[in-house]
């Protein structure tokens, strides 16, 4: 795990992990956004049979980061399940793996637009949003009150930079002093450029932490295209 970067929000330090998860050592909390479990099988009815291994792949990644950070709390920031029927489609062995992971930490499922009612039998509690010390955790970024700080997901941020004539685009964390948006964790989730309209007005002077192959890299807004 790369411990070289710290993102500070309202005095709380967060460590962006190479897997796309975010660790808050002070609270022993591991945050994970936009898992989109069973996205692969979601189009089955229409006859689109994507390789159904995305859930397993995401859970193995999750298991690894839970193993390396040993969190006391595991908090999912919504859109953890791709749709309401995901629970019916999930393979028995994948379900067992998910339960084994949630059994290792106090688990919280924040609801998202894809999963307003996440399944209740996979361990943990379900809420709409929560506070982690001075920081609010919710699925979709909102207009912030005067002194509020927030961590959210939903937008699947990605950033591109130019290096040696090549354009390199990666998932990323994006944050200014008060707001942080996490990359999507799920293995079939696409990403949206932080330069696109959806991000307009959300950030002041921001940085991105791009997820490379072996490390997380930090860039100032000016370098992001």
């Amino acid at each position, binding site marked *: 795990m790369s411990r070289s970067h710290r993102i500070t929000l309202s005095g709380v330090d967060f460590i962006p992990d190479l897997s796309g998860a975010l660790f808050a050592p002070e609270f022993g909390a591991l945050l994970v956004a936009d898992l989109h479990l069973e996205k692969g099988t979601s189009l*089955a009815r229409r006859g689109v049979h*994507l390789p159904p291994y995305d859930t*397993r792949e995401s859970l193995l990644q999750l298991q690894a980061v839970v193993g390396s950070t040993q969190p006391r709390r595991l908090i999912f920031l919504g859109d953890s399940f791709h749709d309401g029927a995901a629970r019916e489609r999930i393979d028995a062995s994948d379900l067992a793996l998910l339960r084994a992971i949630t059994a290792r930490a106090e688990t919280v499922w924040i609801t998202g637009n894809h999963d307003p009612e996440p399944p209740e039998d996979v361990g943990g509690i379900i809420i709409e949003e929560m506070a982690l010390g001075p920081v609010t955790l919710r699925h979709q970024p909102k207009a912030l009150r005067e002194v509020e700080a927030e961590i959210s997901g939903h937008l699947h941020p990605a950033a591109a930079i130019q290096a040696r004539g090549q*354009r390199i685009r990666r998932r990323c964390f994006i944050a200014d002093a008060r707001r942080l948006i996490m990359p999507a964790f799920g293995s079939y989730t696409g990403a*949206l450029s932080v330069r696109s309209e959806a991000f307009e007005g959300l950030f002041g002077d921001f940085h991105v932490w791009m997820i490379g192959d072996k490390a997380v890299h930090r860039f100032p807004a000016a370098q992001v295209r």
Partner: protein
Amino acid sequence: MSLPQRFLDWFSLRGWAPRAHQLRVLDHAERRESVLLISPTGGGKTLAGFLPSLAEITARGSGEGIHTLYISPLKALAVDIARNLEAPIAEMGLPVIVETRTGDTPHSKRVRQRQKPPDILITTPEQVSLLVADPHAAHLLKGLRTVILDELHSMVTSKRGVLLSLALARVQALAPEAIRIGLSATVADPDALRAWLVPTGAEPAPLVLGQPGAKPNIRILSSVERVPWSGHSSIYAIPEVYEEIRRAKMTLVFVNTRSQAELVFQALWEANDDNLPIALHHGSLDVGQRRKVEAAMGEGRLRAVVCTSTLELGIDWGDVDLVVHVGAPKGSSRLLQRIGRSNHKLDLPSQALLVPSNRFEVLECQAALQAAEVNAQDTEYPMVLKMDVLAQHILCRACAGPFHPDELFAEISSAWTYRKLTRDEFDTAVDYVATGGYALRAYERYAKLKLQADGTLRLAHPRLAMAYRLNMGTIVEDEMLKVRLAHVKRRLGKRVVVGGRVLGEVEEWFVSQLTVGQTFVFAGEVLRFEGLDEFGALASRSNDREPMVPSYQGGKFPLSTYLAERVRQMLADPAAWNGLPPQVKAWLSLQRFRSVVPKAGEMLVETFPRADKHYMVCYPFEGRLAHQTLGMLLTRRLERAGMQPLGFVASEYALVIWMVRDLSLAVSSGRIVLGRLFDEDMMGDDLEAWMAESALMKRTFRNAAIIAGLIERRQPGKEKTARQMTVNTDLIYDVLRTHQPDHLLLRAAWDDAAEGLIDAFRLGAMLRRIKGQILHKPLDTVSPLSVPILLEIGRESVYGEGHDALLAEAANALIDEAMRLV
């Protein structure tokens, strides 16, 4: 068979007589034998194909269902042929109804064609698949007597041909009496085409040869200018090419890539003091614009057209009397095909001019010229056994109605292309179509094929047939974006960009690397990128003469194995250098003096130091793709051997790798044995490991996934919101590779990459060829032969005057060093 009297009258009325090959095709058809006719363009090939059908329909009477299917690779060609057929039918007063059916045919006409089929249906390969996917196919085709396959040579080398062969196997099952008439240009291996035409195990179709045309008159431009050392722009020769255009009536200027076409077109217009009507034609231009150019050509209103392979096939566009080929033609058959576009009259020699864009291309053009003189052919072998295409065809078959797997297996094996298909492979493909073929059985409930009590498989839902019709076909384009001309206005002090007419389409990756304000060449103009809107890219006209963003991507076609062999032989034989331009000859002579010239069977490896790095240059002449793969694999080996390689660059002819350690020393001290370094065993684990990670594999995977129906094509007008609906195929590739590395689609992607982008087969053959034949020459400094490839370092994607001046400055030092005597 003798022709009916009114046919003979028609011929003699025109002062013609049926040609020998036309009568021979007629004979075979009367004996109900399939036949292959190989004949140059302009030899009355199309009429030869049609005569038997016209005669038979006249005898049996019209309106008895589809008698003849005529399959052409191009939509435009199909329409053109239908038009050309109307004349003889009308003039002879034959009771024959001819119609076309292409992707553009409206639904109402299709319905009418089903109720009242024409005697002759002219169509494209995809439409044949759609036809046999129709539940009424059996009824529609029951009276079919003849299938004519036009431009067969061009169809069989791609997945389109593989798909067509399966559709034809289905046609054969529905109309066992039908014969096939293949029409082809000259190919390297006619026997393969003869076998392709008939069911597995049957006697190959007899071969009929048309009358050969007059020998073409081919020249190589002997420029008074200095032939560049490297690069592909050919700008040096533009004034001379322009002179040729001025002297000719109508010139076709062929180039190898779209961006070369743009560049040459722009340069010609800069030289166009007489304001000659010179047009541009390539696949990315808007269809309407292309049709306009074609029409203007047909009416003789143009003096020249700069084009890519889009004008290579079939249609007679008018009185072309000169073909100019800018850049090396890459293959003898390609050159002959392109030259054949001039003078569609057999008895007159075609006129052609080759314009090499660098010194190695001078050698290549010379080799191509000699090959063309002896009419040597180097067409590719027909493509066989593609699993993604098989999967698509299985779904096609299911759309027509329930089928028994045993019967379908027999039918598919009857296609020459699938004669080696095993039952195991077939069952895997059926399982893939039904449930995705995953070890994790997630889709049993959602299977597309359902097993019936009688052992047949049935399509699970009619909706799947609709999806098949929208997604079928084997041509997968790069993701394209429309480019629209933008008008920039000022509104309340704000800059507002308004989109206007569509200029054409450009690859999405290209647009993704542009930033607002950058300029690039498109549709013959320098454009300024203004951003994206929901319809695509916006660009305004720019006053810049030099585009900021180059778009040259290297050659599309690799140098053919045959021409490569000829180039190697020419290089090895100083007597042959006399035919070369003096500056090229001097260059090679100096190579002999400063380094060494390899014998025809040898591969030269030069090693030398330069500016605190050590270089290795080798000259396999196997094409850029194979060299790139070789570079990748050698770099890994040199890394392991502790040589600290820093980079490599591959060209069509050579490969250079540079490193920290002294390779000359490592070889002389025996620490590295070149024979070991270039050993064939690099094609094992190293290749596997590299390919798995390669971006090229992701590209071939995407193609296979679309053809096999794993993911749906983007439908125009129905763009999905990217994030929610589509899953990026790169992500699918990564996940599938981790969890089921032996999946059908991964194997299909691997095969395609090995055959195509990675050219592993050719590389393997090369490594076997040079075993024990490596000629090592350690040098103190660069050699003359190595200059072109060294100049490619760091400039592969650069062209344009400004850049060239800079490069020339840097390069001159290098050339001086290499060409300095002693």
